[in-house]
């Protein structure tokens, strides 16, 4: 059996990559992808802990989390499409109408 630490390491790596992308990227779609990375790193943790501590609660939570992520992605992409129609770009630096 693969040790738990490896799962945690994988999750940490994914989380850090996601966070890095979130801070550095300007493109809306990339940001959405980074957020998915963050969520999925959490899901890996949930499932791993659930498997090592015989208890299905974590896996149930992971399912919820995936459903939520799907909904969030749907809303997020809808907003991005609307923004694209309005501005002709999804570069978030250019979308600043409400900024001071």
């Amino acid at each position: 059996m693969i040790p738990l630490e490896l799962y945690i390491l994988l999750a940490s790596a994914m989380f850090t990559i996601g966070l890095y992308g979130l801070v550095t990227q300007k493109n809306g779609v990339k940001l959405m992808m980074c957020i998915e990375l963050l969520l999925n790193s959490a899901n890996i943790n949930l499932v791993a802990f659930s498997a090592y501590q015989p208890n299905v609660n974590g896996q149930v939570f992971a399912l919820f989390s995936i459903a939520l992520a799907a909904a969030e992605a749907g809303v997020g992409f809808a907003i991005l499409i609307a923004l694209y129609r309005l501005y002709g770009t999804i570069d978030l630096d250019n979308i600043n109408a409400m900024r001071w």
Partner: protein
Amino acid sequence: MYADYAYLIVALPVLAFLLCLFLGWHLPRGGGFITVLATFGAFIVSLGIFSETYPHDIVHQSMSWFADFNVGILIDPLALVMLLMVSFVVTLIHIYGNGYMNGDPGAARYFAEAALFSASMLGLVYADNLLQLFIFWELVGLCSYLLIGFWYRKPSAAAAAKKAFLTTRVGDVLFLAGIILLYNNLASLNIVLKPGEYLLQFPVIYANLASIPGDQLTLIALGLLGGAVGKSGQFPLHVWLPDAMEGPTTVSAMIHAATMVTAGVYLVARMFPLFYAAPHGLTAVAAVGAFTALFAATMGLTAFDIKRVLAFSTVSQLGFMMAGLGVGAAVGAAAVGVSMFHLIGHSFFKALLFLCAGSVIHAVNTNDLREMGGVGKYMKWTMYTMLIGSLSLAGFPLFTGFFSKDEIIVIAYEYGTMINFLPYIFLVLAAILTAIYTFRMWFSVFTGKERSNYGKHESPWVMLGPLVILAVFAFGFGLAAQEDFYNYLDSNFEHYDVDFAHLAAIGGHEIESGHGAEAVEGEQAAAAEGENAEGAGEGKEAEGEPWYIQILPIIVAIGGILTAALFYWDKVKKFDPSQVTGDKDPLRRMLLKGYYQHEILTGWFAETLVYGTALICNMIDIKLVDGWLNWLSAWVMGFAGHVRKVQTGIVQNYVMALVLGVVVLVVVITLATEVGLV
């Protein structure tokens, strides 16, 4: 039976108000017939109650409202004569209004407001407590504002409405202060109230007057007098009444002659025991009344607007009524009967005069006496009814005004023999002037040559009918009803627990010896018959005066009329007014300018003093009050302008802040755990 329907007296006109307001547009003549029917219904109910209660009963219904207050109906002789007069006169005026307002685009609004006015005046009259009276009092003020400003597109009408509202407001504030003071005093007495009794009810007030300290009574009386002065157009709050003639003539007749302005006199009559008990209370009333009577009469002499002449005469006659109550210090509660008699008689002949003036104005299309002349040839009915009204106002023997005014002058004389002759002198002078200005007006309008080219036709019968009915009352009411009226009203305060002898002691009045003896007899009779007969011998008092005092009012009236004839009737004209007083005459100029009231009140007081003060206050407001606040908010704005740059609107910055925050938290918690703080 009718007493069970007493609420209808107010409810019917209110219903008419609602109907005219919402449906009047769709009805012929703005639904004026609804208002007529409603006030006529109120008159019928009042008449029914009169026939049931006359002469010994009163109607008193009451229910709890909130806290110490109640709503209720109190119909005693004082209220009942007012109810009858108001509903009767107002009905006639509404009938007349159906002709007068015909074709006016706002007729529905007029009749709605007129109905609301009738309702509030009737409600004021039979309120059984001071608070309720005050509420209706304010409603009356509101209606007067609406009706004076009826032609609100005319700037002068809008200004007059505002002036009336604001001027009476001064009095109303004093009135309210008086009520609050009275309430506080009554509340501090810890009166044990029987079920169905409430603190501000008139019977409760009457019964507990004697327990209130004298100086407080004087303050309360002055507050209430302030209200009465405002509403009844007494000096110095009379300025609104002549201007109030901007409304339709029916409004002038209804509000500013017959009914609303009498509310102030009615208030003083209603609270007469309080004024009687208050030291100097009646002195103030007499002073205000007598001065106003003469003051307004002099201004009536020089006015050229027919309605303004009548307006000044109203102010003057209200002064008579006030003075009649004020000199009651000499004769006790009998003064209420005398004053109310003049009030009722006055409302008949003054409503008549105003409606006649309206009829003339309707035909000739001008208010200016200088442009009329010779109207009598074309308007016979108006001329003769107006002659009756004028004779009555001037106090010609056997007319209503003669009996009522004569009686006030006689008790003023009694007051003079006991206390001070000033009110008497003022009133007699005012009576002469009354006769002169009344007939100056009448001769100027109806006799002589036509001084301009005006419309020549008699008014329709819907207008003349009320004139004829009112003329009958203006002539015959005094002759027919004087004795009964006095007896009936003198019994008014016997229904309550009022001991005038005791109140006189508090107020520092001496009761006249003859009258006092009668009072003692009365009390003996009361012991025997179970009713108090104080003041029942009032009719005899007039016989105690010297003969020249008794016939003086007759001389005064006839002399005044003759004087006016010599100046203004072309057939016997001996003098030309312009020869007696030229344009340079300072007295004439002063009267024409109305004692420079406009210059003093508006020009000097309002525009210089108040406006100057307002400018200074404005500067302080802008520089100091607003100044530091503006400085503070400007500083906050500047500071916030820097601080808000933190909110960049860039998602990445927020994420960085979030991550850094988590890192810091983790470090802090770890360190704290290591050190052992947590």
